[in-house]
């Protein structure tokens, strides 16, 4: 009983029995094999021939394509690795500075006095970050800078983050504000800085030293480390004449991403308040004179009430003058410091609450998630490129070796 192998062998032998070699096959093959020596030279030899300028490229097109793709992939990978070392540190800074350069330039100056006011508006450089870093209003900044609770006490901790808070006492206002007719300008500003990783605390210390060096002091200092992104907020106060020096000095401590400064001439308001104060004091003196001449209880009570009202107005004006004197004596610069690449620092004064905060948080997380996905895809693409390069080179080598082997 013949097996399948026997039947297959018989079938193949019988089926190909009538095949004969064409006449002259050997001569044609020999002639073709030796007709063009360069055509069948080894790859290296062909390359040398081409470099010498004898003849054009003789490589099969697919081999050239595979070789080119392999080299291109390797070049891309090398370039990606070369750029990858700097991308992390620079991306955030580039994005921030890009926004800053592309932002609008506005001029803020507020006249708060009468006819004698000579407003000296200061330019507001940079952009206002999303999150309402608006020009600092007089009232809010005055309250922030001069409220006793903020000047003399710690500003509290930030809950689970384990923040470190320090405060500095006021060193008192300078004594250069006694003259009523001297020009008085309130200068304040805010700045955002990004610094390299691990330099937040050092930068904050540098800012403190800067303020002290200019004869100023630190009104508030706050550092925190939330989710591995250390940030710091420092409120510096310095003599108003040193405000520009403080700004330029702070700019040197890190990469400035935004800067907002404002200057308000309060000379007119100061003069008005002094004039009102003098008038009220004269009125009080008049009432006191009348009070001394009162003969009945009714007259005495009525005049005394007038004196108390005037006294109250005098005290209010004296308080306002004290605030203005303080403001115009010392400039205020608030500096927010964050690490490059960390989420944007939100000034403590502009933190959101409620639904706004929740929406902002969700948008931030969405953005971070998108960034993470894109970053992961980039890595995947890199791996695929490497695999493709090796595959192309392997294919090329396999083809060449197989051709050499016959």
């Amino acid at each position, binding site marked *: 009983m013949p097996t*399948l192998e026997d*039947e297959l062998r018989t079938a193949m032998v019988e089926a190909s029995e009538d095949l004969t070699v064409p006449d002259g096959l050997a001569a044609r093959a020999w002639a073709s*094999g030796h007709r063009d020596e360069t055509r069948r030279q080894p790859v290296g030899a062909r390359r040398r021939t081409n470099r010498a300028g004898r003849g054009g490229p003789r490589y099969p097109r697919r081999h050239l394509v595979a070789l080119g793709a392999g080299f291109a992939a390797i070049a891309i990978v090398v370039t990606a690795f070369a750029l990858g070392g700097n991308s992390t540190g620079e991306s955030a800074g580039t994005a921030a500075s890009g926004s800053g350069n592309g932002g609008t330039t506005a001029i803020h100056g507020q006249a708060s006095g009468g006819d004698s006011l000579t407003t000296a508006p200061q330019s507001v450089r940079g952009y206002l970050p999303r999150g309402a870093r608006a020009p600092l209003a007089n009232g809010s900044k005055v309250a922030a800078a001069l409220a006793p609770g903020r000047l003399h006490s710690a500003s509290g901790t930030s809950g689970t983050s384990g923040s470190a808070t320090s405060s500095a006492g006021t060193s008192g206002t300078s004594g250069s504000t006694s003259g009523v007719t001297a020009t008085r300008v309130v200068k304040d500003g805010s700045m955002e800085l990004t610094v390299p990783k691990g330099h937040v605390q050092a930068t904050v210390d540098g800012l403190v030293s800067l303020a002290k060096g200019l004869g100023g002091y630190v009104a508030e200092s706050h550092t925190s480390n939330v989710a591995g992104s250390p940030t710091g907020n420092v409120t510096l106060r310095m003599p108003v004449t040193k405000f520009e020096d403080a700004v330029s000095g702070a700019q040197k401590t890190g990469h400035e991403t935004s800067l907002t400064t404002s200057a308000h001439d309060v000379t007119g308001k100061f003069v008005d308040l002094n004039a009102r104060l003098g008038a009220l004091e004269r009125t009080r003196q008049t009432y006191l004179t009348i009070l001394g001449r009162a003969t009945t209880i009714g007259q005495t009570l009525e005049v005394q009430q007038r004196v108390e009202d005037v006294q109250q107005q005098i005290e209010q004006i004296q308080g306002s003058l004290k605030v203005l004197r303080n403001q115009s004596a010392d400039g205020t610069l608030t500096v927010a410091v964050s690490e490059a690449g960390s989420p944007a620092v939100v000034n403590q004064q502009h933190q959101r609450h409620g639904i706004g905060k929740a929406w902002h948080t969700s948008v931030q997380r969405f953005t971070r998630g998108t960034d993470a996905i894109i970053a992961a895809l980039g890595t995947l693409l890199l791996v695929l490129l490497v695999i493709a390069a090796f595959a192309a080179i392997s294919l090329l080598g396999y083809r060449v070796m*197989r051709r050499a082997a016959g």
Partner: protein
Amino acid sequence: VELSAEAAFESFVASSGRSLLRTAWLLTGDRGDAEDIVQTALERTAYRWSTIVGEPEAYARRSVVNLATDRWRRRKSRVTEVPLADLTGRSMPYAADDTSLVDLRAQLLADLRLLPARERAVLVLRYFNDLDEAETARTLGVSRGTVKSSASRGLARLRATGSRLERQPAATANSEGAT
């Protein structure tokens, strides 16, 4: 020296050319392709004639198998060519015959062409060229285990052909009895 080499090559072609051509035909199933493949394989052999170590027929056979595999790969992405002889029913030496054995052989050859390239090459080298497993493995550039598994799978598929042919007469007889 060149003349003697050419003479030796012609002698080699005279002795092995037909076997190579039959191998190529069994691998491709097309005479024109087989002749092209043998021509190319012999050109390569001629070019490396002075540097070939061992049997030149083994080198030429390996070239034939590789070229047939390349052709098979290229053919997969091209429109299938149907030789005119196939349309006239004269491509196969076995025409319809009432002898089941002849039908079996014809069907075996037809199914051989439907096998994957490696299985087909293994069967041709093992049972037409009578190479052992080691020689077949060297020719194909694969391991002996691959040769064994490929031969086993190929034979199993061809065996299914035999089973179909064995069942066919009975079915035919039943249908004739019914009429």
